[in-house]
């Protein structure tokens, strides 16, 4: 039973670390495609909203972030917040790895050290039980 709880917690955290950063990247990509926004009149706001909601990347970004948030809510129904919060920070490492190997971005030695320290921290947190409380009143 405990291994089942651990397994579904890890699956949920994996979904979070994929869809959280992906959502942010897609929103950033969509907004960059739109360009600089200048609000001079109320009509500009409506115009921007129309353009924003006609951008596919933004819809995909919203869907990714909704997936992230829903998974976050679900995992908190059975796992400790103090387990999920530090464990999900492995996303920082994922972003660094993806940007290095897929986008060929330069990662500084300090950043690699940070990824290593985060991974070590997450490893230590993962040794502790995912749930230490019962259902709240």
């Amino acid at each position, binding site marked *: 039973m405990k291994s089942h709880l651990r397994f579904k917690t890890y699956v949920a955290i994996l979904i979070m670390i994929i869809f959280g950063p992906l959502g942010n990247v897609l929103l950033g990509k969509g907004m960059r495609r739109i360009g600089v926004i200048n609000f001079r009149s109320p009509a500009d706001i409506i115009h921007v909203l129309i353009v924003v909601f006609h951008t596919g990347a933004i819809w995909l970004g919203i869907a990714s972030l909704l997936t992230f948030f*829903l998974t*976050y*809510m*679900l995992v*908190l*129904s*059975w796992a*400790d*917040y*103090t*387990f999920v*919060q*530090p464990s999900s*920070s492995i996303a*920082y*490492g994922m972003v*660094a790895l993806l940007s290095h190997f897929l986008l060929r*971005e*330069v*990662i*500084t*030695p*300090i*950043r*690699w*050290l*940070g*990824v*290593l*320290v*985060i*991974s*070590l*921290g*997450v*490893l*230590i*947190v*993962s*040794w*502790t039980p995912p749930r*230490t*409380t019962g*259902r*709240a*009143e």
Partner: protein
Amino acid sequence: MMREITLLLFVVCAGTGGELCISRAMKTIGEIRSFSPASLVYVILRVIRVKWMWLGIGLEATAFFSLLWVLSFVNVSEVVPVTSLSYAAGALGGKVFLREQVTRERWTGIVLVSLGVVLVLVGRV
């Protein structure tokens, strides 16, 4: 200077407080075992009736807009390391507010994660 520090601490407290409230709301719902679309809709309908969820969403929104405000006059490189304090605040809140058992191992992991996040964000090219 005092205004920056106060606002940054507010961002950390409101953001972490929001997550703790959402966690509390989900703990009142209990462990979710079925992941079918109908079950998930039922969970959402149940959770929106929990006051902690609304308090959590309100605090998260306040933290988000406060962060945007802070970023308008403080450099990102100064803001981001401070926001990693949320890991320590979260551990403290989890222990006191959610009554979670934060063991020595978990504290060690959380401190390392906070340190690592600072290094990742400070070490940008």
